[in-house]
């Protein structure tokens, strides 16, 4: 085999290695791309307030019971809702209050993640304000009251009369 072929081969090897490294990076680049994609298309937007048509009609004929649930995972916090449940008409806006308290003697930050029952409630629940849109940082011993403002879309299937909104606070690594 001539020297020149060996040289071309090495050049090719380098190119392909660089390409592999780029693809390795691309794997990581998929993470922000995925997040951006979800944000732009509005899929999975746990962190943005919803916008609702101003003249949405209140459906006075129905009353939906909303159970409010609060949990913490891996945090030295107490977390509760001040009402255990509320009743509203679909289309009517309401504000409910939650309270967190840091029981430890250090500053701790956490992020609340909502979950709903039944699962499709997510489609009909429109939140204007929520403590879950941002992380919460609590000083040692600090107590904080936080509102959630929302409506339930009157489009919600008629057989639904009771739903549950649950929040779980997860610990955030320091520095995040």
């Amino acid at each position, binding site marked *: 085999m001539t020297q020149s072929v060996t040289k071309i081969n090495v050049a090719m*090897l380098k190119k392909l290695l660089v390409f*592999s*490294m780029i*693809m*390795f990076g691309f794997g*990581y680049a998929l993470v922000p791309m995925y997040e951006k994609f979800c944000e732009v298309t509005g899929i999975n937007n746990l962190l943005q307030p919803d916008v609702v048509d101003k003249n949405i009609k209140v459906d006075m004929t129905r009353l939906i019971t909303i159970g409010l649930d609060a949990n913490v995972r891996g945090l030295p916090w107490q977390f509760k809702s001040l009402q255990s449940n509320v009743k509203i008409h679909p289309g009517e806006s309401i504000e409910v209050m939650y309270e967190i308290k840091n029981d430890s003697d250090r500053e701790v930050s956490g992020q609340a993640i909502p979950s709903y029952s039944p699962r499709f409630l997510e489609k009909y629940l429109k939140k204007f304000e929520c403590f879950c849109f941002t992380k919460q940082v609590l000083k040692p011993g600090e107590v904080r009251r936080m509102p959630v403002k929302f409506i339930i879309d009157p489009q919600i299937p008629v057989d639904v009369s009771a739903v549950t909104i649950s929040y779980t606070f*997860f610990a955030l*690594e320091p520095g995040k």
Partner: protein
Amino acid sequence: MAVVQDVHGHHDHHPSGIMRWVTTTNHKDIGTMYLWFSFAMFLVGGFLAMGIRAELFMPGIQILEPELFNSFTTLHGLIMVFGAIMPAFVGLANWQVPMMIGAPDMAFARMNNWSFWLLPVAGALLISSFFVPGGAAAGGWTFYPPLSAQGGLGVDMMIFAIHILGASSIMGAINIITTILNMRAPGMTLMKMPMFVWTWLITAYLLVLVMPVLAGTVTMLLTDRHFGTSFFNAAGGGDPVLFQHVFWFFGHPEVYIMILPAFGVVSEIIPTFSRKPLFGYSSMVYATASIAILSCVVWAHHMFTAGMPAVGQLFFMYATMLIAVPTGVKVFNWTATMWRGSMTFETPMLFSIGFVFLFVIGGFSGVVCAIVPIDIQVQDTYYVIAHFHYVLVSGALFAIFAAVYYWLPKWAGRMYDEKLGKMHFWLSMIFFNVAFFVQHFLGLAGMPRRIPDYSLQFADFNMISSIGAFGFGLTQLLFLYIVIKCIRSGEKATDKPWEGGSTLEWTLPSPAPYHSFETPPVIK
């Protein structure tokens, strides 16, 4: 550069005994080692499959505890995909690509040795993970979090093994691309290359495209597990669905990595035994390339039930169905090649025809899975298991058998026993269908995959399937016997044992000399 071995440099005698194999840089030696390694892994993976089918022989839990059953299914998948099928094709490429393009060896002979010797390390890691505390990984071969974010040492060993296998595949792919692009004999233009070489060129490009993404995925999983990142960990703001996207971005091209070389093998064998040139050579090349490109934009058909907007489902549904078009072109071309050919049915041809028949069934069930409303029904059932065994066992594996029978005379210089070969084919064909055809019905009736027990109405079909599987497993020991018998005491093979063979390897003596094509042949 250390990786560049001047191929003229190893004319003098090579070390003998075990060191010959450890240090060899000869493409034929390395090809042989790849093939034996993959056969060994095939037996290990087959053992796990026998365990699974034995447990599923009857309803109830008999021999495998659920956790161990889960490890069996997980490691069966990983070992068969990464340990058996992929290395077997790389082994075929090592033997055949240089001989078919008239090159003396692979482009980077030393690197070739490394990419092989990484494999036994990874294989040993996977197998030994059964014996560590907590046992082997049990979250499925697709290792979705959160299961794979939990799990013990076994999962870390799996992750490490995948890193190693990925490195090996990438090096192998780089080697193959460079060999094919730079070392063809004078006169062999790209469009004169044998189909097997073409399919491997395209496969190797797919490998360098997606294997690094898999490496990135498992790295993210590893840092999630041990270094506090939260790519996939919902509790820290990550997203487990993201894992599925990144995994299948690798995973779907991966399934084509396992089938394109099989297409290549069949495209060599069918013309040989039909004594006609391949019908529609250039359409074959374009079909292969379009399958490869399309395979990169269909990944989410594995995730129709993971939560996706309807437009997304529609896009991935149509894109997936589109792949059936170039695949159909190929099937058409193989059939047209046989049409009015003067066919004979030696074992390689039997396996190739079996391939065409059964692969088409697998392709059809794939198109059925691609239809969103149906897939929502059959996702994660035995229907999917049936689908991918039709494309992987009677697809990829049958093609590997065909290739071994086809080229064994050239490699060993001896003929295999034709009668036994045919028996191997027919037994495989029958038992395979007994084992897997009924799984379509099980899946349609709703039997979930990866569960060690099932409700009573599934009992009969499961028993049939298990019997087929045991038969299929035993039949493969016959294959081992045939190969050993051929190497040891087969009849001497002529240089060109198949009269229809038209590629360059048949111009060499049998067995192929240790160094071939040192002076490149000239292609008219």
